[in-house]
């Protein structure tokens, strides 16, 4: 059963992520975290992080990761296959039509309505990741007592670097990872010294 579920879930992710890039984010979160509880929101954020540093689209990376976790290698293959299946059918038809008529009008109307909606959904999924990065359990705490200000400072620095210098995001992520490790040892040093 799990094989069928994996295939069907990632089939839907593939079918409803239009626009590429981060468009698959809300669909993956919906299927994997909300509907099936295959991953916690924290593991979901980890996949995003991992997929930035590994080859391939986020959806394929998530499919492989979830597939392996739930049902080993066959699960990974089936989830990945499910993810690319809608593309294979739909894009092949479009490729055929393009080769024949050299144009593909008519899709634009639907896209005009979907594009802004996709941006809204991506913003919502991003907000969940942002809260998780800043606060312990991904929820805004009642008091500011347990809040780690280092997280806020690093977020601001990363964001400014991205906006001003427009580097490849991989470098920002690697830098943030190194800073996280540095901060961990610094904290340890302080506790030992104190």
């Amino acid at each position, binding site marked *: 059963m799990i094989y069928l579920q994996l295939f069907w879930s990632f089939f839907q992710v593939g079918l*409803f*992520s*239009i*626009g*590429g*890039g981060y468009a*698959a984010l*809300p669909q993956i979160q919906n299927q994997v975290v909300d509907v099936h509880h295959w991953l916690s929101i924290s593991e979901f*954020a*980890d996949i995003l*992080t*991992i997929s930035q*540093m*590994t*080859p*391939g*689209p986020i959806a*394929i*990376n998530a499919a*492989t*990761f979830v597939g*392996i*976790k739930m049902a080993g290698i066959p699960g*990974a293959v089936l989830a990945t296959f499910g*993810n690319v299946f*809608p593309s*294979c059918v*739909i*894009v*092949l038809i*479009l*490729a*055929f039509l393009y080769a024949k008529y050299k144009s593909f009008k008519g899709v*634009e*109307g*639907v896209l005009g*309505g979907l*594009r*802004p*909606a996709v941006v*809204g*959904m991506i*913003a919502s999924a*991003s907000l969940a*990741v*942002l809260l*998780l990065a*800043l606060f312990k359990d991904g929820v805004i705490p009642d008091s500011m007592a347990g809040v780690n200000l280092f*997280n806020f400072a*690093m*977020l601001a620095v*990363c*964001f400014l670097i*991205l906006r001003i210098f427009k580097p*490849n*995001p991989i470098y*920002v992520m*690697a830098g943030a990872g*190194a800073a996280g*490790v540095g901060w961990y040892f610094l904290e340890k040093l302080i506790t030992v010294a104190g």
Partner: protein
Amino acid sequence: MKKIISEVIPIKKNAGLYFKLFRSTFTLSAFTFGGGYVIVPLMQKKFVEKLKWIDEKEMLDFVAIAQSSPGPIAINTSILVGYKIAGIAGALIAVFGTVLPPLIVISIVSVLYSSFRSNPVVNAAMLGMRIGIAAVLIDVVITMVKNILKTKNILSAVIMLASFAAVCFFDVNILIIFAVCAAIGVAVTYKHGKKRGGEAK
């Protein structure tokens, strides 16, 4: 101005061609970190400038089709390129070549993940990188919102805000939002088309 490459060499279909197609998509995919649009300029370089299998205008059309179809852009572009070069078999080989590297790499990573995640240093690095990805996402979202607002289309802005609120605060099913927005898009296009048709008369 950049010269448009429109010179295309004729393609002979044989086992060598299929292998070359597989090898090209495999290596392109293996070295595309971060996913998304990164692979597009790389494909352009390989298939248009180096191998001369596709002309530049066609490649731009492929990217446009890939972006407006469901699924990852890298996969969709591979299908279009593969189909153009060697038909349906070519498309399937191209998809296989593109999917294989992430499948292998993530399989290995996921095994390491479960054994490394409890290590405090790895944990600290992951938490740091999580802040990094949050910053990347804010950056991406700001750019996307700006692009929507730039069109000065009030309906688009309303759709964007409404779908954000629907997902974030009211837990509305994504598919319902999709159906409603697609219907709005079709209705608007139909209305415009009618208006334009009327003006022509």
